[in-house]
């Protein structure tokens, strides 16, 4: 049974951990609150900086997790919401302590290059394809993304892409590749904007787009696009899964990062408290995330 | 004890304004400086006023070679010379603060800072300020903002400003050319009164009648040199140099 001792051991052994596909589960006792670590190399200010994506931040889960984490450990959280690429760049520059994004292929590079360690997969949500209620390309009847994309491309119905190398954009490109289609032409628009703006554009233009469920739900009544094809949160196409990876910035690369606190944060995400919070999180009374600490099916794995 | 330039030359780039000019002003006398426009009257006054260093020659204030002295000595000597310009050039504040200016800059920064702090009750203006303004009949306007003054009134205040700190020498660059006869008379009377008090004055003017009215001596600056310098009466009635006669007759005014 993994106990508190293990997390203490890990903290002492800072900087020497090997990459694992999933963090070791640690149960933080509910009684251990506000105990700051007194190991050497601990920065004296109880703050940790997390770089995450705009869609993650906008769902509100980051603030919810931060509040609970601060209540649990006394460590304050500063969260910066950027594009996925920028968040990873921030991690590479050593300007943050934790990177929390949802782009496994980019995360793999980040870790392989030695900038990220202790990667774990605390949760996933999914992507959904939205579009006009009339569904001119008739994708609502399809079961797989490839089929849906095929119909959109063939009918040349307008599709808006993020076009900004975000996690969503990367996912979209992977899905096109998987469907063996190279999208191009007047119907395929690259917006270069955040998810919220792209959804508004899609609503205005009656276009299809790929969106993470979280942003779609939080737009609430503001999002006329209808949800037409769902991912695994509602038992849909598995390839629409949007797994999240959280990792610490490697102190071997950047001495000054608060690795100790980062570890506590990652442990928290994977802990029972964190996982329950994730599972019960609601946006407009709809569930958004699926906790993955116990997942055996390899969502979000970056092992070869 | 005099204000003098000895063999000074002023050049700007390729242009020479004058070479080898020597002029002496004694305390208690008024020297009028006449000559055509552009002859260098203003430049000569600025040299006497220690604005710029001459390209050649010496400037002496009461025996001290100004440009050979230390910065500190030069400042002290400079502060015994004042100047009134053709434009009043008043600072954008009250008459009183303008006239006080000379007194203020001669005090230490700490004293000046203390002066800024408003004191309850009426702060009476310093006596020298009142006296200087009385010389030109402007003592009632002491708290007036300068924007409300007419051109003539402003020039009178400019005169008071130059007098307030008790200068030894005063330079006037065409002080009344923009003024009406009444204000001109006020200024001229004030200049005469001041020099009776042992101030040495130089008045550059294009008005030869003015020179005749107030000056003890006259110098004619023409073609880059002092063509003639002598007692007023003599220069106008029987000038030594033919050019002087021509100038007075109006032939050389270009």
């Amino acid at each position, binding site marked *: 049974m993994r106990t508190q001792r293990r997390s203490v051991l890990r903290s002492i052994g800072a900087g020497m951990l090997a990459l694992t596909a999933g963090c070791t589960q640690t149960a933080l006792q509910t009684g251990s609150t506000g105990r700051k670590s007194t190991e050497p190399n601990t920065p004296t200010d109880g703050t940790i900086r997390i770089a995450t994506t705009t869609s993650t931040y906008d769902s509100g889960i980051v603030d919810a997790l931060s509040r609970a984490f601060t209540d649990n450990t006394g460590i304050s959280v500063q969260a910066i919401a950027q594009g996925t690429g920028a968040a990873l760049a921030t991690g590479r520059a050593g300007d943050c302590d934790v990177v929390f994004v949802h782009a496994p292929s980019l995360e793999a590079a980040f870790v392989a290059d030695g900038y990220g360690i202790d990667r774990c997969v605390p949760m996933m949500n999914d992507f959904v394809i939205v579009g006009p209620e009339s569904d001119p390309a008739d994708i609502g009847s399809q079961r797989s993304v490839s089929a849906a994309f095929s119909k959109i491309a063939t009918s040349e119905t307008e599709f808006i892409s993020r076009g900004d190398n975000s996690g969503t954009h990367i996912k979209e490109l992977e899905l096109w590749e998987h469907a063996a289609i190279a999208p191009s032409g007047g119907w395929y628009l690259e917006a270069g904007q955040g998810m919220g703006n792209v959804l508004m554009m899609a609503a205005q233009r009656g276009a299809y787009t790929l969106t993470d469920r979280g942003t779609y739900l939080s737009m609430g009544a503001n999002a006329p696009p209808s949800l037409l094809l769902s991912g695994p949160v509602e038992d849909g196409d598995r390839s629409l899964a949007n797994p999240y990876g959280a990792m610490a910035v490697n102190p071997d690369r950047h001495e000054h990062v608060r690795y100790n606190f980062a570890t506590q944060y990652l442990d928290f995400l994977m802990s029972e408290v964190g996982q329950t919070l994730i599972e019960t999180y609601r946006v407009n009374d709809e569930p958004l995330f699926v906790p993955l600490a116990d997942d055996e099916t390899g969502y979000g794995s970056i092992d070869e | 004890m005099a204000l003098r330039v000895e063999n000074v030359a002023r050049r700007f780039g390729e242009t020479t304004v004058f070479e080898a000019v020597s002029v002496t002003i004694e305390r208690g006398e008024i020297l009028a400086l006449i000559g055509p426009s552009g002859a260098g009257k203003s430049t000569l006054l600025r040299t006497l006023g220690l604005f710029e260093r001459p390209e050649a020659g010496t400037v002496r204030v009461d025996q001290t070679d100004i440009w050979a002295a230390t910065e500190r000595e030069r400042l002290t000597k400079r502060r015994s010379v004042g100047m009134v310009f053709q434009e009043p050039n008043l*600072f*954008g504040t009250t008459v009183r603060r303008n006239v006080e200016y000379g007194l203020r800059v001669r005090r230490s920064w700490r004293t000046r800072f203390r002066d800024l702090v408003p004191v309850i009750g009426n702060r009476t203006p310093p006596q020298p300020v009142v006296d200087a303004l009385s010389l030109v009949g402007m003592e009632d306007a002491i708290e007036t903002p300068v924007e409300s003054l007419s051109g003539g009134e402003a020039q009178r205040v400019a005169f008071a400003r*130059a007098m307030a700190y008790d200068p030894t020498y005063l330079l006037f660059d065409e002080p009344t050319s923009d003024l009406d006869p009444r204000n001109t008379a006020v200024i001229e009377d004030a200049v005469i009164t001041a020099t009776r008090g042992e101030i040495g004055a130089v008045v550059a003017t294009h008005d030869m009648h003015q020179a005749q009215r107030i000056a003890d001596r006259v110098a004619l600056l023409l073609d880059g040199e002092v063509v003639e310098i002598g007692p007023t009466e003599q220069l106008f009635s029987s000038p030594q140099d033919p050019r002087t006669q021509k100038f007075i007759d109006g032939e050389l005014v270009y």
Partner: protein
Amino acid sequence: MITALLSDGYIWSIIRVSLYVSLTAIALSAVLSLPIALIVGVTEFRGKRLLNAVITTGMGFPSVVVGLLVLFAVSNQGPLGPLNLVFTPEAMILSQIVLAAPVITGISLSAIDSVDGGIRDAAYAMGGTRLDVAVVTIKEAKYGIATGILAGFGRAISEVGSVLIVGGNIVSDGSSYTRTLTTAIQLEARQGQFETALVLGAVLLVLVLSVNAIVIRLGSGGGRSR
């Protein structure tokens, strides 16, 4: 809704950060800019027109670009890395100084340049030292200089590009750390919370309009002494 938002500590913390960053930036910019404006304004030298052009260009420098450059400088990988400024309000102050200083310098310079040379001569003739003459020049140009400072403040408080990039729009423990009115507005708008965005926008507008009102008052009241 407006009263609810305005009694919210979170909103006030945002206003506080905005004012802290911009006011500090302006104060420091003024200290930097005024001596430069003074020296350039009163001296005639060969490169003066070129320098003027440089300053004018600086006045219109895109704020995002400034943000990017400052980020590179203060990032832990950059030359100022050891100062630990990245994603702090102090980094935001730095980038706003870069944005505001040219504005303050340019407008003040113009005001100082317009001060009649005769005034400076008069101050000198009355026995003033170089410092005295400088003080007189600044006093004569004071309305123009004040306009420059207020214009600089307007630029700083309204910009979003640089403070977003170097500050990170951070809120910590429910209170703003580097979130300003402008970055908060863009966040709320991005999330579709348009009412909140508009209220924040109204607060910002009130700030900017008050500043402009002061500028206009100075402009018409300028030249008239106390």
